[in-house]
């Protein structure tokens, strides 16, 4: 399903406004390559919505007992008051968990996860993060994730699993006591839940920033195809 397939050939020459108006340019050769299978695109956007709802309602719940000494501005939160925020949180959790299950199950069965996220070489990850912050990360082949992307996408899956597990402990500290003992019981789970949320939010910020820097990756999350230079 997500094999790389070339779907379109070269593109016509373009004229350009601005300083180059009227100049006929050498036409770059473009080809379209399928990068995101349909299931991945659908689950991606459902996941984006679920995370938005979970984070915004979660901040309101945190505000009811701000144990880290600060509050989120009410305007950034969802639910209006604690009961409303809890209603949102415990409704959207189904969206997050079921959608996440479909994505991970598909990813494992189809081999998509393995193909996209391996190899995970720590040295390559450090090297590519270094390249990225210096703005020198190569984006010529957008069909392949670089090591920093593989680490980030793998990491955010792990974080979401951690959020769900710590969330289960906070929701049902007695029934899921065994999981709770892995993270310092109820009070420990509050910290695990908060800091995994913070890490996911950081991921989202960097993720959106990266899309802004390489915008042609954005429509591909809808169409599944990406325009890349034919060599």
């Amino acid at each position, binding site marked *: 399903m997500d094999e790389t397939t070339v779907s379109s050939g070269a593109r016509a020459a373009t004229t350009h406004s601005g300083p180059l108006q009227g100049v006929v*340019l050498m036409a770059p050769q473009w080809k379209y390559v399928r990068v995101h299978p349909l299931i991945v695109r659908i689950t991606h956007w459902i996941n984006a919505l679920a995370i938005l709802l979970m984070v915004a309602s979660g901040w309101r719940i*945190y505000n009811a007992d701000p144990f880290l000494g600060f509050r989120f501005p009410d305007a950034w939160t969802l639910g209006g008051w604690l*009961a409303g925020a*809890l209603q949102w949180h415990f409704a959207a959790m189904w969206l997050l968990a079921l959608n996440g299950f479909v994505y991970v199950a598909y990813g494992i069965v189809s081999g998509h996860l393995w193909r996209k996220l391996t190899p995970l070489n720590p040295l390559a990850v450090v090297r590519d993060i270094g390249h990225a912050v210096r703005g020198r990360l190569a984006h010529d082949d957008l069909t392949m994730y670089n090591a920093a992307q593989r680490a980030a996408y793998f990491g955010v899956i792990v974080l979401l699993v951690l959020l769900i597990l710590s969330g289960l402990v906070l929701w*049902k*500290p*007695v*029934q899921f006591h065994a999981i709770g003992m892995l993270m310092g019981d109820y009070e420990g789970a509050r910290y695990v839940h908060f800091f995994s949320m913070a890490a996911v939010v950081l991921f989202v910020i960097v993720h959106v920033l990266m899309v*802004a820097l390489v915008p042609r990756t*954005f429509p591909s999350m809808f169409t599944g195809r990406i325009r890349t230079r034919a060599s």
Partner: protein
Amino acid sequence: MKRKTMATSLDDFSRREIASLERRLFMKRGLSLGALTLLSGCDVTNQESVQKVLWTMSRWNDRVQGWIFDPNQLAPEFPESRITRPFPFNAFYGINEAPVVDPTNYKLEVSGLVQEKKAWTLPELYALPQVSQVTRHICVEGWSAIGKWSGVRFSEFLRRVGADTTARYVGFKCADDYYTSIDMPTALHPQTVLTFRFGDRILPREYGFPMKLRMPTKLGFKNPKHIMALFVTNDYPGGYWEDQGYNWYSGS
């Protein structure tokens, strides 16, 4: 030779131009999407249909929590050294407004699907077999505190009044006009205790004199204080916070 270099640099330039254009377009689109969400955000969440979905989901979560509930799963108990001191006061009113209940005239009313509808005096209740627990009280707000409570197992009390334990709910009415209700499986849980003592003294006024139903398998607000009457029923009795939108089951 020279020509080729020229063409390449133009090509590079146009690519950069396009990239920057794309970037600006993306930002613009992103900003309008954000603005739209902000503008419509408040209206969307207050809509009746949205509220209906949220309430339906909450009732669904009641059912799921009933399925997850294991009647044999015990809440962790702690050594007395872990007791939180001072234990936080928490109610929908200030500590000075906590109800004053006169112990001499007090009688616990028992009604509904029970065989023996007699009212219980405090000495009668104190004479029942007593158990103690040091457990964690978890508030719906997120904080938790460990306390020690003693009293009669609620399952034992329900047995003595001949309650129909196949009924669905036990409801409570309190001296501060608080009211709440619980599911029967939780009422019969071994750690669900009708408590008269807090620590090593009679349950003080601020913590629910003359009695509090202690359930370490439920959030704090589900543990009624100052109980004046209880009843067994199949008709959903709701609760003070539950009727305002807090999840009814709220089990731990």
